[in-house]
């Protein structure tokens, strides 16, 4: 349905030098170009297309239906509304990633409400909204629920600001919902009552994920919902759902491709055991499995029947899992491509991964007890080595450990030279190679030298400027870099800013980088999405200098209690065409 007739003259870029609606130099009539463009989905491709010439810019803006905004403050709702007229799907990302770790004060911003107001006016046919690290209030959810009759998919990843009431509005008013996904958005006040608010004749749901919900759910209402949504293919429940309740849900939804279980701990009668086992065996299409809170050896075998086609197994919250039962379980999952585990499986468990998962491409090992720094549990360099030996296709790793050696990492990347994402977190800050007591420079040097495709890197351990020399020199495809408690001087950060041509996101904390380092990137920040620097040696003076030289950058300093006036303890720099934030709270200074 065409909400508005096409008006090529009203393109904002048609200033001055206008060719009018006919473009003699173009071999294609506009309609043909638009038809071709309607097949182009990727926003990166579309951005490239829009830069070719004005008529292509126009054709692109009329045909774009999916909007992706990586930083909600890089542009404004008004600018977006003027350029694009037929948007059906919006993805918006807000806060810097370190907000996930409580490093941003509450009420920092990234409230989606002004965007929703604009969408309601200009995109009444909006179908999808996907938010990441944004604040959405109940008011926003209500506006969403009432303004878009075609609305289908809501996905909230790492968001906050809402309560059960907002979700109730969504459930009650959106007749055509196919997706409700609150993923890892945890707020204290979100209960499960909204699941009971779907109308009795509502049956279009395909994706339902409330795994992070804290509260209880009315099981009967949930069961009724699941039983009438015959198209349901993704179901991820929260921990309050018991095993026998899960069985009843599975009976109604055997065609699931993704399942997140509830608590995997319950005393079962033999009959219940059998019923549940049968229910899992009937899930022949399962590709993704998660949940499994408190899974123990007794009940893991229930899952065996469902594992043949499993490609993604997320055991990261199954913190009672140990190596023996984990190894047995893995033997039933020959097709695993992606595995997330808790470090309670230890090196022995990872050895089993190396032996049983030859197709593995992604591994994430999360610490079950990240704050107890005085014990030596969890995984070590040995587990990582074992996986690298058995899984040559490994290209994505997130690894939390308490000790590592340079030699191990050198071997690991030799075994797996295809790393695109290498995120190593040695949990004690500034910890050296535990065998040689040397810095971990050579480890990360090996990563960037041996893995030409490296796109994302998180470094840790004791690191000198050497590490950054290596990264700047060798990591030509690097897009995202996370640095903590590392480096010796400004020179380290300068190496990064002068190298790494494709760098887009840089986040730094607790490093000895000062104003000189900050300013060394002045040419580069406009080509990046953002820079975060906290607890470094940057001063207000340096930030002001950067702000003065770069009108298209927003240089923001977050002021907190204590600390002296001259220091800039939390700095967030990002490119923007929207100018300084209008909604900045008092503790955010835009320079």
């Amino acid at each position, binding site marked *: 349905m065409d909400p508005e007739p096409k008006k090529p003259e009203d393109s904002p870029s048609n200033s001055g030098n206008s060719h009018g609606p006919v473009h003699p130099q173009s071999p294609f009539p506009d309609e043909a170009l638009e038809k071709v463009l309607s097949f182009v989905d990727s926003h990166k491709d579309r951005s490239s297309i829009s830069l070719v010439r004005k008529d292509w810019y126009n054709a692109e803006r009329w045909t774009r239906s999916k909007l992706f905004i990586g930083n909600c403050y890089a542009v404004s709702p008004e600018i977006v509304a003027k350029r694009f007229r037929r948007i059906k799907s919006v993805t918006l990302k807000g806060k810097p990633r370190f907000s996930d*770790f409580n490093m941003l004060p509450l009420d920092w911003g990234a409230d989606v409400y002004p965007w929703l107001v604009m969408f309601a006016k200009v995109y009444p046919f909006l179908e999808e909204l996907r938010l990441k690290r944004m604040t959405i209030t109940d008011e926003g959810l209500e506006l969403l629920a009432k303004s878009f009759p075609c609305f289908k998919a809501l996905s909230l990843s790492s968001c906050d600001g809402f309560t059960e009431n907002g979700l109730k509005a969504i459930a009650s008013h959106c007749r055509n919902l196919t997706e409700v996904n609150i993923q890892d958005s945890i707020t204290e006040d979100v209960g499960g009552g909204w699941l009971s608010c779907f109308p009795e004749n509502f049956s279009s749901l395909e994706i339902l994920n409330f795994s992070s919900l804290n509260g209880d*759910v009315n*099981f009967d209402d949930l069961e009724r919902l699941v039983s009438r949504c015959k198209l349901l293919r993704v179901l991820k429940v929260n921990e309050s759902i018991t095993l026998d*309740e899960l069985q009843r849900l599975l009976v109604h939804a055997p065609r699931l491709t993704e399942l997140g279980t509830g608590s995997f701990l*319950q005393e079962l009668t033999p009959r219940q055991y059998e019923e549940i086992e049968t229910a899992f065996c009937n899930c022949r299409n399962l590709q993704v499995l998660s949940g499994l809170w408190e899974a123990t050896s007794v009940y893991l075998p229930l899952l065996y029947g469902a594992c043949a086609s499993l490609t993604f197994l997320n055991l990261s919250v199954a913190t009672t899992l*140990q190596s023996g039962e984990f190894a047995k379980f893995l033997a039933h999952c020959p097709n695993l491509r992606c595995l997330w585990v808790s470090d309670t499986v230890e090196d022995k468990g990872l050895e089993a991964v190396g032996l049983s998962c030859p197709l593995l491409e992604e591994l994430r090992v999360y610490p079950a007890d990240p704050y107890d*720094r005085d014990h030596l549990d969890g995984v070590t360099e040995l587990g990582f080595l074992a996986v690298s030996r058995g899984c040559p296709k490994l290209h994505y790793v997130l690894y939390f450990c308490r*000790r590592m050696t340079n030699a191990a990492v050198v071997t690991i990347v030799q075994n797996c030279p295809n790393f695109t994402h290498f995120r190593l977190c040695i949990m004690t800050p500034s910890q050296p190679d*535990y065998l040689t007591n040397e810095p971990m420079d050579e480890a990360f040097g090996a990563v960037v030298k041996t893995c030409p495709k490296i796109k994302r890197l998180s470094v840790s351990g004791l690191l000198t400027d050497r590490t950054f020399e290596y990264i700047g020199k060798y990591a030509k495809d690097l897009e995202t870099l996370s640095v903590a408690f590392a480096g010796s001087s400004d020179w380290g950060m300068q190496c990064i800013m002068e190298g790494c041509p494709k760098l887009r996101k840089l986040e730094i904390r607790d490093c000895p980088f000062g104003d000189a380092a900050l300013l060394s990137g002045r040419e580069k920040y406009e080509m990046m999405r953002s820079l975060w620097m906290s607890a470094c040696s940057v001063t207000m003076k340096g930030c002001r200098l950067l702000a003065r030289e770069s009108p298209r950058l927003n240089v923001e300093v977050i002021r907190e209690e204590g600390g002296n006036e001259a220091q800039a303890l939390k700095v967030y720099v990002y490119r923007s065409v929207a100018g300084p934030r209008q909604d900045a709270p008092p503790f955010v200074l835009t320079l």
Partner: protein
Amino acid sequence: MSMPQEHDYIGLSEPLPSEKSSDKTTAAAAASNVERNGVFSLKETELRLGLPGSEAPERKGGVGIGIGIGIGVSLFGKDESKCVKSGAKRGFSDAINGAGKWGLSINGGSEVDLGQKGGVNVSAVKREIPPLEERKNEAAAAANTAPASKAQVVGWPPIRSFRKNTLATNTPKKDDVGGNSGTGTSCLYVKVSMDGAPYLRKIDLKTYCSYTEISSALEKMFSCFTIGQCGQGLAAKENISESHLMDLLHGSEYVLTYEDKDGDWMLVGDVPWEMFTDSCRRLRIMKGSDAIGLAPRTMQKCKSQN
């Protein structure tokens, strides 16, 4: 060396009021708790630390390091601010460390009196046992070149908060039966696990009013595991008779511990009953032998022994 005087700290026959807290109200609650249960004087039930056979002045008797009991002091590894906040709380991992070290290597070591009324604050205790602390620091130093302050660094390690909470799962106030709105129920369900048992149990703390009651209930609940009714019970390894089990539970081959609101593992019996039910999130019965020999390890490692 004379045999240490064993003390049944699980409290099967008497309550174990805490006197470590400097909070007067809890001491008073402790006293009234004892009275309610009509058992002996507080002094007899005081827990104290010391070398086996040693005795503090003005004390009738006390507990040395009994078989399988780890009694520790929150000296090591917990950051200072946390210690101060929690008063005289004792972390379980430190209990294990402490027990191990005292048992093995102390040289006429000092005796720490935790049981006195009014409490001894932790930093004071710390000063009394410097040799242990140094030893601990040495062990930690090799792996730990962190900044001098042992306070937790904000946002490090970079873990999302929902992952942090997986170790301490449901709140005690959560209604066990799904289907309610989940607010304001009168149940206090906590999970109870036992090393070697293939599954956990859930009990409602509100149905008990003393440590005695909860201990006997737990005995009954878990006796089936050690008598080989369930596959991976201890009986699979060693045939244990029922009477032997009673000995095990009574005779402190098992250590009953709980995880409190702050995520610390504590020995059951230290605090007054009400304080315990308020702060207990889950219980674990672990093998005392595992506890002693595993310094410096924690609950996680003990689990994986089986």
